[in-house]
């Protein structure tokens, strides 16, 4: 077990160290200006020094992202279930949803600000939208792709539509839901950056821009590291959730090679 973990950890660890060392070296050797490419050491020092500032901003972003995620996931699930239960509504509105999904955020952001003013509302709408789409589509796919033999079984023993939804479709779509969530999580962080660019007075995206405009590229790199870390952490949480939620799935197939299908 320990051996196994070690074998999975060392290649990226080695390449990470090599990468950072190379970066540091080329910065020192070629004397690259810090406003073009700051060295890892500089970034680390800066991150340590500016910790109170960026951690406050990071917390604000996290709050925004989590609220957006929560809203997006909730509406995504609700809409998916409604569309699943009403095929006519589904065929009537899904082209709209698809079209709307393709409206570039770059245009949507400013329009949302025109419509909803400043403050949290437009940002939350933006984030909710961005989380809504992957969740709703994955969930809808999951609801529609239940095992036909399980559905047949439920129909044969006389289940109601509600029974089928509750006992088959909802649980069966959980893995799809979490995989949608995994997409939504990544979207939500990068959209939060964008929302904060659009107008905010806190958040790591705001911090990044201010530092950019203040020529502090070292801080920009620090902010990027914070953002990537946040993103990866949230993704990791979603992946963990996925493993917990699909507990009923066998982890590996080796144990059942000899079984009848």
């Amino acid at each position, binding site marked *: 077990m320990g051996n196994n973990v070690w074998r999975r950890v060392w290649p990226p660890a080695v390449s990470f160290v090599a990468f950072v060392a190379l970066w540091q070296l080329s910065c020192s050797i070629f004397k690259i200006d810090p406003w073009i490419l700051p060295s890892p050491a500089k970034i680390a020092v800066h991150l340590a020094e500016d910790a109170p500032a960026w951690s406050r901003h990071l917390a604000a972003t996290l709050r925004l992202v989590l609220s957006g995620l929560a809203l997006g996931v909730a509406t995504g699930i609700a809409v998916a279930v409604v569309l699943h239960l009403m095929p006519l509504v589904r065929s009537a509105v899904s082209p709209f949803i698809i079209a709307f999904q393709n409206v570039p955020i770059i245009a949507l952001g400013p329009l949302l600000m025109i419509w909803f003013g400043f403050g949290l509302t437009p940002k939350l709408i933006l984030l909710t939208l961005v989380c809504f789409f992957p969740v709703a589509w994955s969930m809808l796919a999951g609801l529609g792709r239940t*095992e036909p*033999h399980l559905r*047949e*079984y439920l129909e044969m*023993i*006389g289940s109601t539509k509600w029974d089928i939804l509750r006992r088959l479709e909802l649980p069966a779509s959980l893995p799809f839901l979490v995989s949608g969530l995994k997409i939504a999580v990544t979207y939500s962080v990068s959209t939060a950056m964008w929302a904060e660019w659009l107008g905010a007075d806190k958040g790591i995206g705001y911090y990044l821009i201010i530092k950019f405009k203040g020529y502090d590229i070292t801080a920009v790199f620090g902010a990027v590291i914070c953002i990537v870390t946040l993103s990866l952490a949230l993704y990791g949480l979603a992946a963990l959730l996925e493993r917990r939620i699909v507990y*009923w799935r066998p982890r590996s197939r080796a144990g059942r090679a000899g*079984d009848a299908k």
Partner: protein
Amino acid sequence: MSKLELRNISKSYVRDKKTFSVLDDITISVGEGEFVTLIGPSGSGKSTMFRLIGGVETPDRGQVLIGGRDVTGVRGLISYMPQQASLFPWMTVRDNIVSALEIAGAARGEARASAEDWLRRIELDSVAGEYPHVLSGGMQQRISFLRALLMPRDVMCLDEPFAALDALTRTEMQRWLLKLWEDQRRSVLFVTHSIEEALTLSDRIYVLSPAPARVLREITVPFERPRRADVWTLPAFTALKRDILALLGEGDGDSDAI
């Protein structure tokens, strides 16, 4: 009076704008406590018949009667055991059974008690809390059968329940089912491709033609109950098997078929 009766059922499907007749004036019946088997080539419409009995589809002509009452198109009157075990992977073995009983109208507590009780009786209480994926195929089919058995319904429909098992496990499952069923004596309609399985288990056999399915022959199986494990060694068994093989070969129109 028979428990289940299909009277002059016909059914066809439309596919690619063409009409395929699947069942052609089928009449069969299952008596109280009788084990009746349908045997017929693949695609002859056996599962379709089950869907008609379950009320999931309605026939073009004819009626389905359960306990003498016309229940054509009415759902929720039969218990069912499909080819694949069809256990819900996100429920434990126990919850799979409880859930089915709840759908059939049982209260949760009651369903739970009866599930626990029966799992103990068939010596599967040790896996009651497991998820289905850890069970072998044979175990899964046992649970699936128990789930069908416990539903408080008059007719059990078993659609090729052992087709996905390997030959040895299959034989073992037949023995197990026979023992359980002979204790209980429910009315069963059973579908299989295996002539031996049909002869080993049933009281009566309907041999069906390829689609559109008609009843080629109705055979009463003469072996006494409880049935011996080595019933297949009897000469009468071999004779009947040869008969059915011949029937299916001829119905198929393909002399090479069997």
